[in-house]
């Protein structure tokens, strides 16, 4: 019994010791995991600390840079201030604005004409979808003193390329079209030449608001369309008949006296008096008669906050003369005589009206020209009538209604203006059934102060017959820079 008890006790002790050892063995790996975890923890902590340190350093550098930038800005402002002060030391009343500036505009138009089948335009009009660049105008403006300035406007054009000088008529004439392609020898290169047209070039002296003088080649101070002048400023794509037919001379070479009076701060009275070579076959090169053309412009306008109106008129009287030079003798002395081949007096009156009310714009012009011949020319063969041209009257008018839509909430500063226009003309009352009308409508969109986009559709109809009937579509981008 004792022996059994001792044996049991011994076995128990042995068993206990064995399990204790086994447990120790089982716990041996835990010491290895603890080391790794601690290591990772330490690494993580180190990384966090490094991150924090880096972030702090980044913040410090940022702050330093910001301070440096601020300091540089301040120094820059101070330097600008010094430069301006230096500039101001040299300024006097003569320096009223930029001394010399160059700017301009150009346009790209996309057109498609649809002449009626039996319209005379069917053959004359290319009637193919086409891009056109009709205007590339560059301005050179110099403000020499506070009263003296000069302005030159040049129009660069692809013309006379494509100008048709003759249509083919069997047995009589050949079709001729100008091709300006030239060859450069070295290096060999083909080049198409274009042209430069002088739109205006004049000196302006204006010692007072109510009096100034323009000397040179200037835009005739008449109407609204002629003064607006450039495609970015004009509402529609197509010009009214009175403009492209030049019923009034659009430009004149001579002198203009002009001025503005202010009955009130919002009411203006403008006047202009013109003396020029008038209209002639080469009026910008030489006048072929002694008569100088005279013109008088008067306009009253009111500009309120949301309401404006203007009513103006321009009267013009001039003489057109064309000549040829004939050698009448060679011996005993060389002698040349001038013979007048065409001559007429023209008396033109034009009225213009502009009303603007809360974005709605009504603009219209009327013109009437009387031609009285002193030396009759043969009628243009296009009139189909033959013989000599009798005295005649030309009448034309147009009206535009446009509305600048109140969409600032959605469009911001962009302007969207739908418009409709009616344009009537009777070009020669000595030819019966010679009047026509054009009706058009479109959208004028200004996404920026420098770009104007227009889309337009129109219909030209002769009142009698189908002379020049056509429909057209046009889109235009006009850019000012």
């Amino acid at each position, binding site marked *: 019994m004792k022996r059994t008890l001792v044996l049991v006790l011994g076995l128990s002790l042995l068993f206990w010791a064995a399990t204790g050892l086994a447990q120790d063995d089982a716990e041996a790996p835990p010491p290895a995991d603890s080391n790794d975890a601690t290591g990772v923890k330490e690494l993580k902590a180190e990384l966090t600390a490094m991150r924090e340190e880096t972030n702090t350093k980044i913040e410090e550098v940022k702050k330093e840079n910001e301070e440096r930038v601020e300091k540089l800005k301040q120094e820059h*402002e101070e330097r*600008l*201030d010094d430069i*301006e*002060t230096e500039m*101001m*030391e040299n*300024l*006097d*009343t003569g320096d*009223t*604005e*930029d001394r010399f*500036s160059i*700017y301009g*505009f150009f346009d790209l138009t996309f057109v498609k004409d649809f002449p009626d089948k039996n319209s005379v335009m069917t053959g004359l009009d290319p009637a193919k979808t086409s891009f056109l660049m009709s205007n590339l105008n560059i*301005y050179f*403006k110099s*403000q020499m003193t*506070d*009263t003296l*300035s000069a*302005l030159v*406007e040049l129009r660069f054009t692809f013309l006379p390329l494509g100008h048709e000088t003759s249509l083919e008529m069997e047995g009589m004439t050949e079709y001729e079209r100008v091709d300006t392609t030239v060859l450069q020898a070295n290096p060999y290169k083909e080049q198409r030449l274009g042209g430069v047209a002088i739109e205006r070039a004049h000196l302006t002296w*204006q010692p*007072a*608001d109510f009096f100034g003088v323009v000397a040179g080649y200037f835009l005739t101070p008449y109407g609204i369309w002629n*003064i*607006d*002048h*450039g495609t*970015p*400023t004009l509402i529609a794509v197509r010009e009214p008949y009175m403009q492209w037919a030049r019923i009034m001379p659009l430009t004149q070479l001579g002198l203009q006296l002009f001025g*503005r009076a*202010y009955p009130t*701060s*919002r009411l*203006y009275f403008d006047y202009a008096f013109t003396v020029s070579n008038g209209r002639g076959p080469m009026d910008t090169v030489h006048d072929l008669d002694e008569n100088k053309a005279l013109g008088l412009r008067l306009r009253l306008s009111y*500009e309120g*906050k949301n309401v404006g109106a203007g009513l103006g008129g321009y009267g013009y009287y001039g003489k057109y003369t064309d000549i040829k030079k004939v050698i009448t003798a060679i011996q005993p002395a060389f002698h040349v005589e001038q013979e007048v081949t065409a001559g007429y007096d023209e008396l033109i009156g034009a009225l213009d009206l502009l009303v603007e009310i809360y974005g709605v714009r009504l603009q219209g012009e009327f013109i009437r020209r009387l031609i009285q011949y002193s030396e009759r020319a043969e009628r243009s063969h296009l009139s189909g009538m033959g013989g000599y041209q009798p005295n005649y009257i030309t009448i034309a008018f147009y009206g535009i209604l446009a509305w600048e839509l109140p969409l600032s909430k959605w469009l911001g*500063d962009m302007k969207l203006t739908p418009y409709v226009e009616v344009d009537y003309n009777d070009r020669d009352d000595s030819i019966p059934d010679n009047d026509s009308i054009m009706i058009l409508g479109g959208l004028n969109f*200004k996404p*920026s*102060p*420098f770009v104007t986009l227009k889309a337009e559709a129109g219909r030209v109809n002769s009142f009698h017959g189908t002379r020049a009937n056509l429909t057209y579509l046009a889109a235009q981008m006009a850019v*000012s820079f």
Partner: protein
Amino acid sequence: MNRQTLHIAALVLTGAFLAPRLSAADSPNDILVVVNNSVPVENIPADRVRNFFLKKAQRFKGGMKVFPVNAREGTDIRKEFRKRLLDMTANEETRYWQDQKIKGGITPPPELGNTQKAVFKIKGAVSYVFRSEYKEKTSKVVLVLPAS
């Protein structure tokens, strides 16, 4: 209540009454239209000043040539002046000058950083400044555009 107390009370009440009116008339954000001291006019109507900055008029009464000077584009004073007097946005003003250049070759007024200095130095100059920045005697105030 003795006389002294009454006086103090009256002063306090008067001040309380006037203070809002004075502060409304003399807000630091009022825009003062200023001209060179040589300009022989004391007051110019807002419409006339507008015409100067849009170059629809180029002479003061008396014939002196106007030299309008704009603050730099983007500055608060320029934005406020455009809003309060020209009644245009920046794009509208730019568009206006693009049209004027094409029609008649008229270019916009110059922009300078220190318009007060320009007005002080240039005969016939007209410009604008916040009341809080105005330095007395450097120029004459001819119009006040109050803060809204």
